[in-house]
């Protein structure tokens, strides 16, 4: 099950914990994986570790010309494109009253606009192939909101709306467009929490634990597979039950 042999994928934000897990999962299922990120050294190390069928393509997603160039490079180097995973994302948290316009713009640019530009570029290739998968990593906060994250929540809700629209536009061409919305995932960020903060956080999760990057990667792997061909325009919430929507 979930054999991606011969498929070509692009994963953005592959140097982050979740992005790396996604790249490893798709690669492990047989796909050729183009991995993108800003930290070149880490990217090269991951590509080296994955070995064959892994191509590092550094890119700053806040630069629109670079985003378009990445789309072109990825298709050329992989020899096509079947699976686009819009995983890259950043936060510039702050209460709305104090949020700087540049922090709003930066988050929308990287989390939403770059995802749109990559989707738009890849759709050309996918339409011709009559096959494609676009999977965006959103967040529970896109649906539920979160104080201090007006920009981030807006960007993630934006990606959800965009995905549903794209899903309707290209459904007849064998292309599906879906989202995976993580809840709390154990990363370097959550490691920094103290015991009391951790306890408060976990009390809101029926599973009583945080998720792992592999939990997200498994959801992406499913949506990328042929088996998920009838699933489109959906958000798969992977959050230990902390929100049931």
């Amino acid at each position, binding site marked *: 099950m979930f054999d991606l042999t011969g498929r070509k994928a692009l994963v953005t934000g592959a140097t982050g914990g979740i992005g790396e897990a996604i790249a490893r999962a798709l690669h492990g299922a047989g796909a050729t994986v183009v991995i993108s990120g800003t930290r070149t050294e880490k990217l090269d190390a991951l590509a080296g570790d994955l070995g064959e069928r892994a191509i590092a393509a550094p890119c700053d997603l806040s630069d629109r010309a670079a985003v378009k160039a990445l789309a072109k490079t990825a298709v050329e180097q992989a020899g096509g494109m079947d699976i686009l995973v819009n995983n890259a994302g950043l936060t510039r948290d702050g209460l709305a009253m104090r949020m700087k316009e540049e922090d709003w713009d930066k988050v929308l640019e990287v989390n939403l606009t770059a995802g749109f530009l990559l989707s738009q570029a890849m759709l*050309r290739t996918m339409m011709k192939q009559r096959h494609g998968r676009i999977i965006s990593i959103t967040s529970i906060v896109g649906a539920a909101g979160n104080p201090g994250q007006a920009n981030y929540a807006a960007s993630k809700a934006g990606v959800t709306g965009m995905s549903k629209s794209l899903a309707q*536009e*290209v459904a007849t061409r064998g292309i599906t467009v879906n989202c995976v919305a993580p809840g709390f995932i154990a990363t370097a960020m959550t490691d920094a929490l103290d015991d009391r903060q951790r306890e408060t956080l976990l009390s809101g999760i029926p599973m009583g634990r945080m998720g792992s990057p592999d939990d997200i990667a498994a959801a992406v792997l499913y949506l990328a597979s042929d088996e998920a061909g009838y699933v489109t325009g959906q958000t798969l919430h992977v959050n230990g039950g902390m929100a049931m929507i």
Partner: protein
Amino acid sequence: MSDIAERVKKIVIEHLGVEEDKVTENASFIEDLGADSLDTVELVMAFEEEFGCEIPDDAAEKIQTVKDAIDFISKAS
């Protein structure tokens, strides 16, 4: 038949998977050749690629038949 007409028809035949004799100059992509709105977008993109020209959105909307496409591309190139 002009070279442009030949190439346009070839793209239409390949893209829409229709019989050659159905692709007459007056054939409408949507009404006669079974295209949907996405097909027309893809056709315009294929024409742009083949002829190295840009077809603006307002012109693309008016390209509804094989002849429309041939006429536009003849003028543009």
